[in-house]
């Protein structure tokens, strides 16, 4: 019988493994460099300059990586709006990737801004400029990561607090909180859907401000639409990749059918995205720029190939059903999508006047440090809380084992 994911179950393995220590090292290195940056300014640590004033932190850790972390948004849209209850067992994995990628993204933003003490004014409505796209992005992201995502991620934590080893008061409080979460869930989910729709599209609108300095193959009034749809695609693809990798590493059964239907959605959405992308380029009369085969033309073609080829390959059902064959293609698609999100901000951004930007080593290390921090969070959480999907048999077995242990202890 094919394994079917129905419930969530933690990995019973110690947290402090060798890969975890590697992540701790990378994160610590990044953190040390962040501290150094606070004492010496941005110039000594980064390659940022007056032409390319946004670099890796803002354009990669926030704009690109929160698209990967849009799984919580995309999966909630499928599960709770499109009424696809079968994806429910994947929601916790998706929400975990979201909260981790957004949290480290916001931390990277705090390191990137030059005058962080003025962040205090984010709570002072009299200084707000609601017409500013960056204000909207900052506001919606903060609300998302501090309210909506926390609310959505409460369930596994509360279940953990309801454990028999906990004091009675904690268990009771957790029980009340769980009842509240169950009642208020639709309001939280709706907020967690509305906010990313706004800020993921506004991350695209930000580059509208680049005007003619963003190459015409990327600069279009449809940037917000392209950005939010790409976040949807990347979010799902990343959840799939995380699940496939986790199941391979921890030897858990894979629900091939469920993953295949996600790949199917990814493939179709990508096809629609590409159709609009080419339609927009044709409408703006920029097809010539594609065929000029200059740097930007070739960049566009490679980027599009990285997105289009996997989408086409994943049309084959047998390939979708085999994770070992779907995995590499989903990886390629993810790289292409990330490249699309990154290109208008840096590679196709042309400030002129001889400005150049290539991230410095400390900048790369800080950026990696934040990714390692998210990985640490992932490794810890899936081993302590019921996050990763499991079959009914596994859940029943785990419950039986637990009760046997309890009896033995008694």
């Amino acid at each position, binding site marked *: 019988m094919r394994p079917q994911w*129905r*419930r*969530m179950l933690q990995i019973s393995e110690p947290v402090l493994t060798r890969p975890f220590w590697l992540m701790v090292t990378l994160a610590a290195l990044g953190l040390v460099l962040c501290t150094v940056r*606070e*004492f*010496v*300014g*941005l*110039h000594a640590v980064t390659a*940022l*300059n*007056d*032409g390319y*004033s*946004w670099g890796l932190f803002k354009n990669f850790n926030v704009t690109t990586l929160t698209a990967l972390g849009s799984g919580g948004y995309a999966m909630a849209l499928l*599960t*709770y*709006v499109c009424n696809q*209850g079968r994806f*429910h067992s994947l929601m916790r994995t998706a929400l975990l990737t979201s909260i981790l990628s957004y949290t480290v993204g916001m931390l990277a933003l705090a390191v990137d*801004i*030059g*005058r*962080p003490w*003025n962040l205090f*004014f984010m709570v002072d409505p009299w*200084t*707000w*400029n609601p*017409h*500013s*796209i*960056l*204000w909207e992005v900052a506001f919606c992201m903060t609300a998302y990561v501090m309210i909506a995502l926390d609310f959505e991620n409460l*369930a596994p934590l509360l*279940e953990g607090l309801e454990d028999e080893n906990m004091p009675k008061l904690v268990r009771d409080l957790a029980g009340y909180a*769980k009842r509240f*979460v169950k009642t208020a*869930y*639709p*309001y939280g*989910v*709706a*907020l967690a859907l*509305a906010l990313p729709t706004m800020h993921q599209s506004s991350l695209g*609108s*930000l580059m*509208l*401000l*680049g*005007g*003619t*300095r963003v190459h015409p193959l990327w600069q279009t*009034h449809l940037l*917000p639409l392209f950005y939010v749809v790409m976040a949807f695609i990347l979010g799902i693809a990343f959840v799939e990749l995380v699940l496939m990798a986790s199941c391979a590493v921890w030897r858990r059964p894979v629900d091939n059918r469920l993953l295949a239907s996600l790949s199917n959605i990814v493939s179709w959405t990508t096809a629609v995205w590409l159709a609009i992308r080419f339609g927009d380029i044709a409408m703006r009369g920029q097809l010539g720029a594609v065929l000029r085969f200059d740097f930007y033309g070739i960049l566009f073609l490679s980027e599009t190939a990285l997105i289009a080829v996997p989408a086409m390959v994943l049309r084959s059902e047998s390939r979708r059903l085999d994770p070992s064959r779907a995995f590499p293609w989903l990886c390629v698609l993810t790289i292409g999508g990330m490249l699309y999100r990154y290109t208008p901000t840096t590679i196709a951004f042309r*400030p*002129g*006047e001889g400005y150049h930007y290539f991230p410095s080593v400390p900048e790369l290390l800080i950026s990696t440090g934040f990714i390692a921090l998210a990985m640490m969070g992932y490794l810890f959480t899936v081993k302590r809380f019921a996050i990763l999907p499991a079959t*009914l048999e596994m859940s*029943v077995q785990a419950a039986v084992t637990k009760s046997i242990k309890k009896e033995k202890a008694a």
Partner: protein
Amino acid sequence: MNVDRRTLFKMAAAGCVGVAGVRKAHALAMQSTDDKFGLLYDATRCIGCKACVTACTAANGLAPEPGPSAGLYQAPEALSAHTKNIIKLYRSADGSEWSYMKQQCMHCADPACVLACPLSALTKGDFGIVQWNGTTCLGCRCCQIACPFNIPKFEWSQVNPKVVKCELCRHRLAVGKDPACTAVCPRQAVIFGKREDLLADAHRRIAGNPGKYFQNRVYGEHDGGGTQSLYLSHVAFTKLGLPDLGNRSLASGVREVQENVYQHGITPVAVYTALVAITHRVWHKHRQHSAQEAEELGLEEQI
């Protein structure tokens, strides 16, 4: 009275500057702060003496940038955190065509930097000056991404970095003085005044010298939605680094895209309400199903 030539020159110069200074200061005091003031730079008059560059550095308390002169001269190479105003030379490849170019904030009528600034640290202030207020600035540098002229600069090496850009010497205007660059220009290549007066002056020059000026037009009259720094030149504006922006401001285009989607905040509220309605139904159905299943299996329900 024994007056030699040198003293006579000095007296004449002092008299001219004094009269001009008083007239200008008086004119500004009489103006409403709503009036737009700006600069008119005529590239055909500029002799590239860079007196304005030095004067700007001094008037704004900026550190000199000796550049490649090894500490000898004030010789900045580009606008930077220490240079708010610069004179550059454009020369064509064969050397047949050349011109000086003055670069500083354009003080746009509808500035993209002001639209971009999340906490209103950049605003359009008195006399239409685009000004920076460090109290609320986050140092996010969105102004640098947004400015089509690459004007705002950032103090990258500072722990307490500021955004540096020309503010039309508003501290000098407050005490009745002209902006430093216009006050020292020996050829009146750059002059300060009310935008409409400057435009009239520019059009008089164009009318008086047919064929002298590029396209017989003033850059900034309509470009990018209009700017308060205006340019006359004998070579193409793009060669001087003034981009071809069309007559519409970047900010108005971006605002339009945003407003079409957001409809003054109605869209987000409507979307949220619709989402609550849908998820409420789906969630309820899902809960019933999962509670039943958990009961059958004797397991806890998982949200």
